[in-house]
């Protein structure tokens, strides 16, 4: 299929789904869900098609290894708001394609996982699809304005999704999450306006901007703005506090989507807009951010140790793992950047599965407090084994995706011989021990040990519930055992960024 | 009698007006103080017109318009104050306290 059309279709389709859902009758839940499911299934197919096509056209030849311009496939541009010379300018490189693939998988699983939603199902699925459309939009856009626009579209529906269908202190959590992310986007806004005007080209086009050598004084203030702005969504310390509350109170699908995909927008933006466009700024600030994200990694892990709520544990582990994403970037080495990208994918799959399982367990036990569970292996072996596996993925067990990513991150961070990088990488590597501690603690007290009698009657996952779990497990193992092709793709995309960084 | 005298006079009137506006408790009184301010402005116009204006006609006409306009304004104000008096039976500015926050 014609590439640009395919790209447009992919991000438009969820909007269409939302529009189609509007006329459906309030009470006709089944139809609403089926529409969403089918729509997103089609989208999944489309994205897979796109990926296959992309693998066909992507080349990792030496020319790519030398060039410092990201090679966007299926580029297509048409003027939009001419007064600010804003264009609808789309195209994808390997990172965006993989991210879209991740999104497609996660949302498909998410919709199955939220099959139980009964309350105002219509609004729920409409908002969910709008959110997804925003996410796809961010990944396809090359124009900074549209990127920002989609970014906000992706952030906002979260408020109602959490506030309306969440649990616990949902209003507080939703408000906090939304405000912190929007405040972050305030920084981004200033940053991209700065890029627009300071470049002297009056353009939002990433490719043109990437070739501009911005003045150091400008990058000195603009880079941290952009990096922090996106970093908030990447849960960078100390702006991560929305994540535990938000993820804890969000409904299953939303946690999956948010932790699995949305948090990746942060890392994506940091890489695409921050480091790619402002390399000198990156060099100026990297040590600061290196320290921050190292704190992230350790702090998230230690924070998870003492939590008792399953979702809080997962949220803190997300903080730690997303820290690893940025940690890979801040290493400023080729392998580090690559590792960061791989970690985005791996963590996306992993944490999505984590929240999915938590949702199912919660739906049965009606508690998320770890200490109140135990012995679930006896009554629900499938879920329990899946839980153990995803836990092991979390602590970076080889043959699961986590190891591939973390190995790249660590090798990359170690490849930077500066002393501070060394110290930070040592600390980060040691964090895997802490990870092991909380993961095993959680898994043990959840699936092992004697079972409480009130759980004896619980049933294992239904066939429908098994579908997302199996899909995600398959992806985890697939990426863990045969990482070759993904790494090839990512190499192709990371080389230009890295070369630009080192220009 | 120079320009500065007149300007100072107008400013003094303005100050008096402001003082009145800030201190009078009776609404009518406040309105009168406002009138004083307006007239100060008029004096300004006249003075500028007389001493340094290129086309002094404009400066001379302006106060007339001002008087007319302020007359309507006062009329409206009085009407409103009357209806206000109907409600509260007081003309005390401190009675205007229901709307706040």
């Amino acid at each position, binding site marked *: 299929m014609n590439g640009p059309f395919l790209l447009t279709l992919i991000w438009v389709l969820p909007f269409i789904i939302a529009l189609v859902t509007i006329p459906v009758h309030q009470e006709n839940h089944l139809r609403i869900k089926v529409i969403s499911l089918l729509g997103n299934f089609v989208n999944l197919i489309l994205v897979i098609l796109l990926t296959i096509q992309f693998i066909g056209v992507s080349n990792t030849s030496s020319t790519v290894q030398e060039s410092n311009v990201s090679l966007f496939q299926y580029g297509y541009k048409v003027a939009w*708001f001419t007064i600010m010379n804003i264009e609808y300018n789309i195209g994808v490189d390997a990172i965006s394609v993989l991210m879209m693939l991740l999104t497609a998988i996660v949302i498909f699983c998410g919709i199955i996982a939220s099959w139980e939603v009964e309350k105002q199902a219509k609004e729920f699925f409409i908002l969910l699809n709008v959110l997804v459309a925003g996410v796809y939009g961010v990944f396809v856009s090359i124009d900074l304005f549209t990127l920002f626009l989609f970014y*906000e579209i992706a952030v*906002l529906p979260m408020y109602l999704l959490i506030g309306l269908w969440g649990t616990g202190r*949902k209003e507080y959590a939703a408000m906090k999450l939304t405000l912190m992310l929007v405040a972050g986007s305030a920084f981004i806004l200033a940053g991209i306006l700065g890029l627009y005007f300071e470049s002297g080209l009056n353009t939002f086009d990433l490719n043109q901007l990437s070739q501009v050598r911005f003045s150091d004084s400008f990058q000195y203030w603009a880079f941290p703005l952009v990096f922090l702005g996106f970093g908030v969504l990447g849960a960078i310390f100390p702006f991560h506090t929305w994540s535990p509350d938000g993820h804890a109170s969000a409904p299953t699908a939303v946690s999956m989507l948010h932790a699995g995909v949305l948090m990746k927008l942060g890392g994506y933006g940091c890489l695409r807009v921050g480091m790619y466009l402002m390399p000198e700024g990156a060099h100026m600030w990297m040590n600061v951010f290196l320290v921050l994200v190292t704190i992230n990694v350790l702090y998230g892990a230690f924070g998870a140790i003492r939590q008792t709520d399953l979702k809080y544990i997962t949220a803190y582990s997300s903080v730690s793992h997303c820290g690893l994403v940025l940690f890979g970037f801040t290493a400023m080495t080729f392998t580090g950047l690559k590792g960061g990208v791989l970690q985005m994918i791996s963590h996306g799959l992993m944490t999505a599965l984590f929240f999915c399982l938590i949702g199912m367990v919660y739906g049965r036990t009606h508690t998320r407090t770890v200490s109140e569970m135990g012995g679930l292996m006896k009554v629900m072996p499938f879920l329990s084994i899946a839980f153990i596996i995803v836990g092991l993925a979390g602590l970076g067990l080889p043959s699961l995706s986590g190891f591939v990513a973390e190995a790249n991150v660590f090798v990359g961070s170690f490849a930077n011989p500066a002393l501070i990088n060394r110290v930070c990488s040592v600390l980060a590597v040691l964090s895997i021990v802490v990870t092991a501690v909380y993961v095993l603690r959680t898994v043990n007290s959840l699936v092992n040990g004697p079972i409480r009698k009130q759980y004896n009657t619980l049933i294992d996952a239904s066939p429908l519930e098994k579908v997302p779990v199996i899909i995600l497990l398959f992806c985890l193992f697939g990426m863990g055992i045969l990482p070759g092709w993904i790494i090839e793709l990512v190499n192709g995309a990371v080389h230009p960024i890295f070369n630009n960084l080192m220009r | 009698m120079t320009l500065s005298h007149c300007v100072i006079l107008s400013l003094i009137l303005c100050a008096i007006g402001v003082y009145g506006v800030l201190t009078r408790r009776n609404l009518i009184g406040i309105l009168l103080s406002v009138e004083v*301010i307006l007239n100060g402005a008029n004096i300004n*116009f006249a003075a500028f017109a007389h001493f340094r204006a290129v086309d002094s006609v404009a400066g001379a006409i302006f106060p007339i318009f001002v008087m007319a306009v302020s007359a309507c304004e006062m009329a409206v104000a009085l009407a409103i104050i009357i209806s*206000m008096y109907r409600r509260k039976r007081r003309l005390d500015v401190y009675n205007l306290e229901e709307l706040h*926050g």
Partner: protein
Amino acid sequence: MNLLLPEFFLLFLTFFILSLDLWRNKSQSALSFHLSWGGLLALFVLLLALPYDQEQVYFGGYTVNGTALLFKQIFVLSALFTVLLSRPYFTPGGNRRGTLKYRSEFYCIILLCTFGMFAVVSAKDLLTVFIGMELATIPLYILSGYQKEDAFSVEASTKYIIMGSLSTGLLLFGYSFLYGCAGSLGFDAIAAVAQSSQDEPLLKLGVLFVFAAIGFKLTLFPFHMWAPDVYDGSPTPVTAFISVSSKSVAIAFLLILVYGPLAPMHGYLQPILLILAAATMTVGNLGALRQLKLRRFMAYSSIAQAGYIIMAMAGTSEAAWSSIIYYLFVYAAANYALFFIISLIGRHGNEEFKSLQGMGKQHPVLAAVLLLTLFSLGGIPPLAGFMGKFLLFAAAAEQGFYAMVVFAALNSTISLYYYLLLAKEAYIIKPFAVKNNLLQTDIVQKVSLMVLTSAMIFFGLLPVFSNAIRATVH
């Protein structure tokens, strides 16, 4: 001569309705209503038909050009929607605020007021501006006190008129000083003076006096004190009218002043404008944080909006004109949509946050419109508000005021907080008792809401509007 047609038509319409009511002496008839909205609609069409690329000056003091016409469009639309809004709001059978005596006078006053605004945006000298401004202001005093039975209304108008006349005094002083140094009332003369002797203290004094006076109408920070009380006390349609029209006319005048006669002093004005903007948006947002009454809330939110708008005036002439006009359209659309919903509630209940509860379940469409409106006001894509704010910020950023942009963007985050509070009331919080559906929407409201909502969406998505405005400004 044809560029003056709108003015004449408006005058004719006004007096026709008035006289009609004189000899037909049926004050409650709907005729005046239909006449006025029809007339306004026709007027709008007429405005659209006029050429926007030429400028004509009539008897020295009155000029008509593209931007003026654009502003006139805003005024006409605002008046039109006020009329449409007032009809269902004032039809008897609601709460005690629902009754309206002297119906056609009400419409006439609105039209007259609009005429005054026309005069302001077309003025070429201080006298015309003064007359126009007074003509645009004094009717508002009357309107805000229109319900003589309602103590709130009367108190509001009392406060309004007294503070208003004080500001008039300041304005006059400002004019007098400007006249003093320019030696003439014409803008050209003032421009010449501003060009030749920039730091003439008398000139600066005059400018500051004028700024204070306009700041009053524009609800800039230290001069905004009247706004919450007046917005809260006046009848809802009047509040809407004040919040859109009277603000727009003030902005128009400020634009004309800053980029017309005072253009040479722009460097001197920039910091003042920025400080005023920063203070205003902060105060507005902070004030709105803890409100419970809808109209008072709207007052603070519109104060904040004024702050954003002023910020753009630090930019270049072209950017400022186009972005501000564009934003005014967007702002008007969102505001009226919200006021329509408020008036729906106010028809029967108190116009408070609480009254919104349960809307998401009982009136999903209405709630969706509310949500869109709030997002548009909060500047969330893909709605028009986002594009509008973006252009305002860009205008400031172009001059390198990035810190200001960050500050403003953070402010709009705060504003998002209280807009989301409204959404929360409408969607999340469960009403204590499920209310029986009181919110009936008649055809007028349905159509208006539809028009406004689609405006909010299409302004944000289609570039034609912004392009047209930029073309006109250019």
